[in-house]
C-alpha cells in the first residue's frame, strides 16, 4: 500500500485529464467482476489515496485527472491481487461499456477507417499525449501504433494495449488479433509503440 500511495503521489504530479467515460467504464467493469462489494473496496482504496472526487458522481463527458483514472486501475489490481493479464482484460472490456466508444463505433466500418480516425479518437478521451499510426500494412496484416506523452505507470501500458486490441478486434472482425508493446517509455524508449497483427 505504501508503494501504491507513493506511486500515486508521483502520478498526481503528471498533468493530463481524461474523460469521465473511461472512469465510468472501469468502475462498471470492476462491478461486473467483483460486484458492488468489490467496487466499494476499490472506491475506499482510491479514497485512501487522497482523491476528494466522489466516484459516484463521475460524469461521462467531464474531464478528470488521469491520475484518478490510473489510481482506480492500480487500486483494483492491488485490492483483488490482479495480474497484468487482468489489467489487460480490464482495458479490453472498457471499450464495451464506454459511451464515447459506442458513439464512435458507428465509424468502425473497416480497419482503414478506424485507424485513419485513431488520433481523433485519442483526443476525445485525453487532453494530453498523442496517438500516431506508424505503419499500416494490410497485406502483411500488421499495424504499428505509437503513443507519446502518456507515461503514468507501466501497468497502464498494459491497460492501453487491451483497450487498443478491442478496437482492432471490432474493426477487423475476428478474435485472432494480437497486440504487443514493442517499445515502452518505462523501458527507456521515447514513446510507447504497439504492434497489432492478425490472421
Amino acid at each position, binding site marked *: 500500500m505504501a508503494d501504491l500511495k507513493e506511486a500515486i503521489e508521483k502520478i498526481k504530479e503528471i498533468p493530463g485529464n481524461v474523460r469521465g467515460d473511461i472512469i465510468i467504464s472501469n468502475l462498471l*467493469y470492476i462491478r*461486473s467482476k467483483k460486484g458492488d462489494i468489490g467496487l466499494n473496496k476499490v472506491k475506499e482504496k482510491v479514497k485512501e489515496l487522497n482523491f476528494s472526487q466522489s466516484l459516484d458522481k463521475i*460524469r*461521462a*463527458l*467531464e474531464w478528470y485527472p488521469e491520475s484518478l483514472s490510473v489510481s482506480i486501475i492500480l487500486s483494483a489490481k492491488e485490492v483483488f491481487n490482479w495480474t497484468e493479464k487482468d489489467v489487460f482484460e480490464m482495458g479490453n*472490456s472498457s471499450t*464495451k*461499456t464506454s*459511451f464515447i466508444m*459506442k458513439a464512435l*463505433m*458507428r*465509424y*468502425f*466500418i*473497416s480497419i482503414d477507417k478506424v485507424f485513419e480516425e485513431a488520433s481523433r479518437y485519442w483526443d476525445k478521451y485525453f487532453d494530453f499525449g498523442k496517438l500516431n499510426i506508424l505503419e499500416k500494412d494490410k497485406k502483411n496484416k500488421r499495424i504499428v501504433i505509437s503513443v507519446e506523452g502518456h507515461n503514468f505507470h507501466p501497468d497502464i501500458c498494459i491497460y492501453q494495449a487491451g483497450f487498443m486490441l*478491442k478496437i482492432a*478486434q*471490432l*474493426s*477487423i*472482425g475476428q478474435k485472432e488479433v494480437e497486440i504487443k508493446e514493442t517499445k515502452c517509455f518505462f523501458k527507456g524508449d521515447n514513446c510507447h509503440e504497439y504492434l497489432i497483427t492478425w490472421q
Partner: protein
Amino acid sequence: MIDQEKEALKKNNQRMREDLEDLQRYVDELTVLLPLPFCTVNPLNLILGVNQTFQEMTGYKEMEVIGNSIDTLFFEKKDLEIFEKKIPSQKQRISREATLIRKDQKKIPVDISALARTDEKGNFLGYFLTISDISESKKFQEKLEQKVKEKTKALELKTKDLADSQTAVLNILEDTEESRKKAEEEKNKTMAIITNFTDGILVFDKDDQVILVNPKFERIFGVGFQEVVGKGLDDFKKNSHLSDLMASLSKSPDFQNNNHEEKESFREEIRVDEATTIEITTVAIFRDQEKIGTLAVLHDVTREKMVEAMKSEFVSIAAHQLRTPLSAIKWTLVMLIDGDLGSLSEDQKGLVQKAYDSNERMVSLINDLLNVSRIEEGRYLYKPSHISFNEVIDPLIEVYKPELKRRGVNFEVKIPKKQLPKVVVDTEKITLVVQNFLDNAMKYTPKGGKVSFLISVKDKEIEVSVKDTGVGIPQDQQKRLFSKFFRAANVIRMETEGSGLGLFICKNIINSHKGKIWFQSKENEGSNFFFSLPIIEARKLK
C-alpha cells in the same frame, strides 16, 4: 477581450457537454426501458451494443456479448449469413425467423428484424437488430400444424374410407342394378304370363286386399282393375258382379290360415251369369314360412259344364227310354217264371230266371244313372222326415241277415239297445246309402268272412259303420273312390257286378243331409265305411 472570448467558449463547451450528457442519459434510459430486445451490429456482424431486455432474453451480460459475432447467438448460422448480406441493400426493415441460443443453451424461436444504419453519405455503418420471442406463437403454430396434420390424416383416412365405401356402394349399386334388371325381366315375364293367362287371376296380399288382377279376370266379370285393386273381400258384398265370387272366396281356408302346411287346394264352382261357370281355386302364397298373400285362379268351366249337362241329359233320356221296355221285359219274365203262360221245364225256368236277374241289374243300373242325372241336374230332391233312426235301419238288417248267412259270411250287428234318437232324413235316400254299404260289403267279402254293422250315438250325431273283411281298396286308388263310375282295379278283376255310381250317389246323399262320409281300407284286409248324420231335435226342426 481574449479572456472574455475564452470564458464564452468555455461556457459554450460546458453547455454542449451538458446537452451531450442529457442525450446520453436519454439514450441510457431508452436502452434500459425499451421492452424490445435489440442490439447494434457493425458491418462485420459484431455486436457493438445491447439493451437491458436483450441481456435478459439472451442471458448474456453486456460485457460478455459485445464484440461477439451476432451469428454466435443463433442456430441457423448459414441462413443468417444470407440474411446479413441482404441488410446493407435494404432500405426497409427485413425480418426472418431464427432460433436464439441462450447462454444456458436453451433454444428459443424468435423473429429477428434488421434495419441498416448509414451515414450521411449512405455508407453502411451496420444495423440494428431486434429480437422477438415467438415461442408462444410458434407453439401455437406447431399445435395448429399438429392439429392440421392430425385432421389431415383423419381426413385422409376418412377420405379413404369414403372412397372404399364409394367403391363398395358402386359395386353394390352395380349388383343391385343387375339384380334389378333381372328382377325387372322376371317381373315382365311373370306379368306377360299373368296378362296372357287363359284363366282369371286374382292376387291378394297378406291382409286380404286385392293387389293384382289380370285382363282375363276383367273380361270374366266385366270390371276394370281400378274397381278391384286395393279392396278387401268385404268391400265387394254390394258389388253384384263380384259378390258371389267374394262370398265363395271367403269360404276358402287359405284366407284365414296363416300356417304353412300341405293341404288340398280350395275349389268351388260359381255361376257368373246364365252362360258362364267358373271354377275357383285358391292357394296361399308363402315365402320363408311367412304368408305373403293368396292367389285365386278362376278357370272357365262353362264348356265342361255344358258337355256334362248334355251328357246327363242324354243319360237321363236314355235311361227313361230304356226303363219302359225293361219293365215290360221284367213283367213278361215274371209271368213266364210264375207259369202264367204255361209250365216250364227246370232248364227253361233256370234260363228265364237268369234273364230276369240280368234285367233286374239293368233296371238297377238305369236307376243309378237316373239318380246321378238328377244329382247333377240338381233335381235329386231331399224329402226330410223326422223319424227314429231305428225305423230306417231295422228293416234293412232283417233283409240282409239271411242273404249274408246264405253266402257264408258272418254278420255282426251292434246297435244300442235303447231307442235310437230321432233324425231328420230322407228315408228312401238314407236307406239307399245303407244298402249300398251292405251290398258292397257282401259282394267283396269272401265266404267265411265277416261283416259288422255298427251304430254309435255321439253327442250331436249318429254314426253308422259297415266293416268287412273283404278285398279292400288299393291305397293308390282310395282318393277316387267317391268319383263317378269309379271301380277299383281289384274288384274289376273279380268281375263282380257294379256300375261305379253307388258311392258317388251315397256321397251326394250324405252331403245333402249335412252329414259326413268316409272310409278306412287296406287291400286284402278289408274296409270300414262310415257316415254320420246330425241329430236334430224336434223343437229345432220346427
